[in-house]
């Protein structure tokens, strides 16, 4: 089985989508000769030329507008916001225009664009280049929100997102770019709105997103040696959310830990928690639904402080242990 990195998987998805469909193009800052700030688009300029690998000035609202306007007139753009944090400058175009256009026009327009957004901390990039803002977009009707955790999911979900006839916010993770995994060479899609049971277990359900998925898997290895078997579910798409596997799992284990990097207050964990409470799983809960998430603070620069600002493997192990042993 071929193993490639998360970044290579994304690049392969973009390349294959562009080879297949002339309407697909990539637009963003420094994506051409530079190859993208993180290297995702390296080499694509040579293959597709500057008409389809479009370097822009530093104009995030313009990039988003280019996506909205070209999408509604028949193209299938992929926009890149260099760091997901910078999406703040493009918010109006995404939230007020792209997301609402179809509805405002009585369901008579299609706005098929993908906005790629590298997010997350752990690179020493400090408070304005390290955020996890996915939940802002979950709150916007009209958008879909995707967050792959593995190279396999990165490719399959990106190809699905490009085929979508709706705007998709595609949150990549900077620490995951170099992680490797099995990725088929051919084109394949993973449907949006399909959770993945990453690991089966009977003692605790962990619902994790993005970089917290591999961290939870690592934590599960540690816990397994102590006789604690956790089940890990990665929703993969936050919106639409496939809640059935989550509910089934909670019914089985009776205990739940939600892990995400974004700050806890107002984060997606609260949403998952409410979904569980409102479901038939409520009667099976042995313990309150717990959340382990980023501290309610901007990401600090200092390496040690940065490490402690978001959940790490040891935090997940400790939290899971407390819940399973009932010593919370």
């Amino acid at each position, binding site marked *: 089985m071929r193993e490639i990195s998360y970044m290579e998987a994304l690049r392969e998805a973009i390349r294959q989508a562009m080879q297949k469909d002339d309407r697909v*193009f990539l*637009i963003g800052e420094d994506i051409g000769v530079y190859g993208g700030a993180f290297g995702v688009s390296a080499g694509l300029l040579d293959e597709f030329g500057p*008409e*389809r690998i*479009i370097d*822009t*000035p530093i*104009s995030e*609202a*313009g990039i*988003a*507008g*280019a*996506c*909205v*306007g*070209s*999408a*509604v*007139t*028949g*193209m299938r*753009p992929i926009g890149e916001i260099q760091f997901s944090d910078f999406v703040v400058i493009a918010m*109006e*175009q995404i939230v*007020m*225009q792209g997301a609402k*256009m*179809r*509805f*405002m*026009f*009585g*369901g*008579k*327009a*299609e706005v*098929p664009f993908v906005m790629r957004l590298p997010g997350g901390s752990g690179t020493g990039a400090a408070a304005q280049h390290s955020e996890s803002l996915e939940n802002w977009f979950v709150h916007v*009707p*009209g958008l*879909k929100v995707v967050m792959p955790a593995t190279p396999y999911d990165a490719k399959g979900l990106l190809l699905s997102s490009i085929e979508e*006839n*709706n705007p998709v916010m595609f949150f990549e993770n900077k620490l995951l770019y170099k992680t490797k995994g099995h990725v088929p060479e051919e084109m394949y899609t993973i449907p949006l709105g399909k959770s993945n049971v990453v690991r089966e277990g009977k003692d605790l359900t962990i619902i994790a997103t993005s970089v917290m998925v591999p961290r939870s898997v690592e934590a599960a290895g540690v816990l397994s040696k102590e006789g604690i078997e956790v089940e890990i579910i990665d929703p993969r798409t936050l919106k639409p959310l496939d809640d059935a596997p989550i509910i089934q799992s909670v019914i089985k284990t009776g205990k739940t830990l939600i892990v995400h990097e974004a700050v806890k207050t107002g984060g997606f964990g609260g949403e998952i928690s409410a979904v569980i409470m409102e479901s038939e799983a409520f009667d099976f809960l042995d313990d309150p639904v717990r959340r382990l998430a980023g501290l309610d603070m901007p990401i600090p620069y200092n390496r040690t402080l940065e490490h402690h600002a978001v959940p790490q493997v040891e935090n997940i192990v400790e939290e899971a242990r407390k819940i399973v042993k009932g010593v919370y």
Partner: protein
Amino acid sequence: MAKSKKKVEMVGGLIEKEKALDLLYKMVLTRTFEENALEMFSLGKVHGTMHVSIGQEAIAAGSSPALRDDDYLLNTHRGHGHFLMWGGDLNHMMCEFLGKENGYCRGRGGSMHIADVESNNLGAQGIVAGNMPISVGVGLSIKMRKTEQVVLTLFGDGASNEGAFHESLNMASIWNLPVIYLCENNQYAMSMAFEKAFKVEQISDRASAYGIPGVTIDGNDVLAVYQAVQEAAERARSGHGPTLIEAVTYRYKGHSKSDRQLYRTRDEVKQWMKKDPIKRFAKEIGVDDAQFKEIEDRAYKDIKNAQEFAENSPEPDVATIMEGIYA
């Protein structure tokens, strides 16, 4: 739009007389629609808000006839005139205004978001300058599809001070996108007067910052608008990029229906009313008082018929409330 093959009388050497009469009718229709709309608000027949373009009708009248049927329109919140000139059907426009199911947007958009995607009318706009970055995308799409269409992007003096203005004009300029930036400078961004909001004397002066042509024209002169848009369209279509047109005009009414207009004098409004674009165009094309009265009566009748049509049209079914959010 060319109809008769026999002797064609032209107005100002630009527009066929027959077409000009149609434009005059639509200008009157726009004003009648908006006056009627204001009355309906006063009578409590509609809810929400809207923005009327009374006094600014020449810009709509002069711009869309200078374009091709397959060109694109990105309208503003004050866009009833442009909607009608673009070929909008009065009955279904009125239905949208009243929030009815058979309105252009199934009653979901209303006056501020009315669009007709089928005719490449990509909608009115509730966010000041919100359509400007979109025009980059439309222009890019045209260029990539090689269709030689153009996009007419409308905005006001207020929008010219948004950051989106800069990003949009810069990107359209560097890539020579087929965008016509048509600024309707009606002197006030809600209450903010033009002189207080700009250091430059003309908004078109800003074109030089993007290396594109900028012109300021009399926005109450249909023919001047027509000519400027036509030139900009030719330039855009031939791959030479965008033009910034500033059409100077004035809105007689408040920003929206709740505006008490404390920021200007009645005398100022009266002075501008002397330069009324509709009367001026009627005179230019040789329409006398009796003919004008006929046009007004026809427009009034058409508006009332449309109102009746809309009032008798079905409300959206609540069971369909969630439709149209996702494709």
